[in-house]
């Protein structure tokens, strides 16, 4: 028990003394997660809107695929993209492997189906009169989609936050595509895994506390949105 308390005190100390290693891991996590969620939103929001507002052949198949992708193991995404980005892979010449960009690509693949699915659910649950109203007032398809997005903005925000929650907590993609390189691609999750295995439990705990606080803030915000 004493070991746990001592580690906890040391972890708090590391956070409040603004330890450089802790700071860097937090920054890398926030930076890569923010970039990936921005890309995922760019892909996922229009996809969700399109799937929600149109009926076409193969729609059900795409929705089933999206549901499957939501539960995609992070190491599988890491593995596939590793194959693409490795030197012998088709995108090897880009030199992205073990850079933050490779992590961002992988995390985008993880988050985009989540964002799309949440937006699809928001559209499906929205008032069916919205689209008729915007069309009868003279809107084009794009203008109608923009207005629909405004009407279901809390659902769209919830989609983005859920996607962010997924990528900031994942370890598989960051480890496989980032390589956990100190000062470059070491995130909170990969640092926790590495430092704890090296016996630096207090360091891992300090990052765990920060990660938990971020997750808590994300969920508080999500709850706040759902109450509106």
């Amino acid at each position, binding site marked *: 028990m004493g070991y746990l308390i001592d580690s906890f005190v040391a972890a708090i100390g590391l956070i409040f003394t603004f330890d450089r290693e802790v700071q860097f891991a937090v920054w890398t996590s926030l930076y890569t997660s923010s970039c990936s969620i921005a890309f995922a939103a760019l892909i996922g929001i229009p996809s969700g809107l399109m799937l929600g507002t149109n009926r076409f052949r193969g729609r059900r198949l795409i929705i089933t695929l999206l549901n499957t992708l939501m539960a995609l193991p992070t190491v599988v995404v890491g593995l596939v993209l590793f194959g693409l980005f490795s030197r012998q892979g088709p995108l090897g010449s880009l030199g992205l492997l073990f850079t933050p960009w490779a992590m961002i690509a992988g995390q985008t693949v993880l988050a985009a189906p989540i964002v799309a699915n949440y937006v699809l659910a928001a559209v499906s649950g929205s008032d069916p009169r919205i689209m008729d109203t915007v069309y*009868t*007032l*003279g809107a084009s398809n794009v203008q109608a989609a923009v207005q629909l997005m*405004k009407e279901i903005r809390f659902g769209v925000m919830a989609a983005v936050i859920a996607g962010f929650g997924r990528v900031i907590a994942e370890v598989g993609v960051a480890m496989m595509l980032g390589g956990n390189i100190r000062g470059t691609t070491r995130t909170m999750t990969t640092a926790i895994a590495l430092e704890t295995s090296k016996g630096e439990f207090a360091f891992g705990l300090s990052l765990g506390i920060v990660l938990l606080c971020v997750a808590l803030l994300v969920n508080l915000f999500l709850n706040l949105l759902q109450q509106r």
Partner: protein
Amino acid sequence: MEPVISLKDILVEQGADFTLSVENLELMPRRIYALTGPNGAGKTTLLRIMALLTFPQQGSVSFAAGGSGLVDKRQNVTFVEQSPYLFDGSVSDNLAFGLKLRGVSRKEQKKHIAETLTLVGLAGFELRNSRKLSGGEVQRVALARALVLKPQILLLDEPTSNIDKKSLSSFETLLASLPNTGSTIVFATHDMSQPERLGAQMLRIENGRLLDRPRQSIDSVDTKQQEKRLWLNPLNLPGH
């Protein structure tokens, strides 16, 4: 005079129970038409076809004016549902929506919105939250949102269903005056005395079939006088 909207050989089948079939329907400008009939007769479906919100399996809908694209065609006609949806925001935001799409300047928007709200008896409602309005007010705002666009054809699905008895008379007077603004009005109603009160031509519909054919001639309307009045006072506002 050319009809503002023509429907030819329309056929809509919705499941095994309902078929709407309209051989030929031509509606003339600045007229008011009342679609009457029992529940499920096809009134709303016919209005939605005219609004280009429901597409028939067969037949054509053509307009006297407007471009060839769907968006251009839809800008000729505005549909107000029986239970209208107001966008989240203020009353002014709702009325500005269609004006923004048509590239109307902010200054002009403000002017048109104030005029139209006065017309529907909601002067000063610009900043009111659309989610905090009564049923009757929602119906009036939805009507104002359509009127502000000065559509060639205005389609109203049971427009007085949420209006209380006290306001009904003034609301009906407003509806009856709308052809003076240049619009052709088609409204669905269950109230069999309403068409007469509004001076509307009756289009009875039963089991998905139109029983009446609209008259083509313009009775008792001095067209030149009407046009002059419209030019001077497009919204028929008092004081012009």
